[in-house]
C-alpha cells in the first residue's frame, strides 16, 4: 500500500468523507468486478458494490491495517454477494431467475485483428455464463484467485476456510468449468496459436 493510501485511510478513520470517497475511487474497479462476476447482472452488481463500500465506511475501525485494504474490501464484497446468492436461491420459487446480462467488455488496445477480438469476446461471454453455474463459494474462490490474484492463503482467510479446502475447491471448479465448456459449447477453449503452443 502506498504512503498516499495510508494517509487517506488515516483521514477516513477520522471521519473525513472526502478521503473515504477517494478510496472508493481507487478501489471501485476491483470491487465492482467481483460483484459483477459473482452476480452476473450490472444493476445488482452496482448495488452490491455500493453496499460493500457503505459497510466498509461504517466498520472502518475493524480494518486491521496490517492486511491489504483491497483484500479487506474484496472479502466484504464476497461475503455480501454470497449472501445475496443464497437468498436469491431460497427465493427462486417466487421470483423469476435473473437473466444474464450482455457482458460488455472494454476494447482491447493490443489486439488489432477484429475477428480475433470478436472470438475472444465470445469466449469471455460464455465463460461468464459458466461462472454463474458454480456454487456461490466456488465462484468467489475462482474470482478472487483469477481476477484479483489473491494467494490461496489470503482467500482462505477472507472466506473463513482452510488453505486445503481452497486448493481442492479451486481445482474442482476449474475441472468443472472445463467439462461444462466441452459439453455445451462448440467454440474451442483456446482462441489462438500462441496459447496452444504453450503445451
Amino acid at each position, binding site marked *: 500500500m502506498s504512503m498516499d493510501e495510508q494517509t487517506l485511510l488515516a483521514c477516513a478513520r477520522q471521519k473525513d468523507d472526502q478521503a473515504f470517497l477517494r478510496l472508493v475511487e481507487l478501489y*471501485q474497479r476491483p470491487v465492482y468486478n467481483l460483484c459483477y462476476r459473482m452476480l452476473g447482472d450490472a444493476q445488482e452488481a452496482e448495488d452490491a458494490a455500493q453496499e460493500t463500500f457503505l459497510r466498509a465506511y461504517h466498520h472502518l475501525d475493524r480494518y486491521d491495517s496490517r492486511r491489504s485494504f483491497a483484500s479487506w474490501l474484496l472479502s466484504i464484497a464476497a461475503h455480501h454477494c454470497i449472501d445475496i446468492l443464497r437468498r436469491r436461491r431460497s427465493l427462486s420459487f417466487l421470483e423469476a431467475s435473473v437473466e444474464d446480462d450482455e457482458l460488455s467488455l472494454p476494447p482491447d488496445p493490443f489486439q488489432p485483428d477484429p475477428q480475433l477480438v470478436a472470438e475472444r469476446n465470445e469466449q469471455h461471454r460464455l465463460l461468464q455464463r459458466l461462472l454463474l453455474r458454480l456454487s456461490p463459494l466456488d465462484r468467489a474462490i475462482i474470482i478472487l484467485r483469477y481476477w484479483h490474484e489473491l494467494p490461496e492463503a489470503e482467500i482462505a482467510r477472507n472466506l473463513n476456510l482452510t488453505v486445503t479446502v481452497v486448493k481442492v475447491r479451486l481445482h474442482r471448479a476449474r475441472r468443472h468449468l472445463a467439462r461444462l465448456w466441452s459439453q455445451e459449447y462448440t467454440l474451442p477453449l483456446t482462441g489462438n496459436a500462441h496459447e496452444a503452443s504453450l503445451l
Partner: protein
Amino acid sequence: MKHPSFDPFLPLSKEVQEHLRHCSSCQAMWQMHQLLRAAPPVPPPADFLERFEKRLIREKRAPQAPRLWPLLLLGLVLLLIVAAGNAVAPRPIWVRVIPGFMMLLMDWGRYLLASLHTAFILLEFLARHIPPLFGLSLLSGGLLVFGMWCLSVRYAVQFAWSHMR
C-alpha cells in the same frame, strides 16, 4: 488414467507437460486456466463514484434526526398524564394502578388455566375415539401444513422487503 495434481500457476514439470499432451481432460482444464487468466475485469459504470457519494449523504442524513424527539415527547406526555392524575385524584395514582394491574394478571391466569383444562378434555376425547395411527398422521400432517404456512409467510416478507429497497 491417473491425473497428476499440479498448480497451474506454477511452472509445469516435465511429467505434467507430457501428461497434458495425452490427456484431453487435463488439457481442457489447463486451457480453462488460461482463459480465466486472460479474462479482463468488468469496469464499473462511469458515474459509480457520484452515485455512491449521493447514497452516502442520504444514508448519513436518514437515521439520526427522527430518533430522540418522539421519545422525549412521549415521556413528556406520560409525565403530564401522571401529574394531572395525581393532582385530581385523592390518592397517588400508583396506589390505584398497581392493584388493578394485579387483578388483570390474575384474570389472565384464570383464562389460561381454563383453556388448558378444555384442551385436556378435548385431547382425552380424541384419544378415546380416534385410532392412534390415524391421530398421529393427522397430527404430523397438521404440523407440516403449519410449517409450510410459516415458511411461506417468511418468504413473502423477505420478498416484499427485497423489492421495497
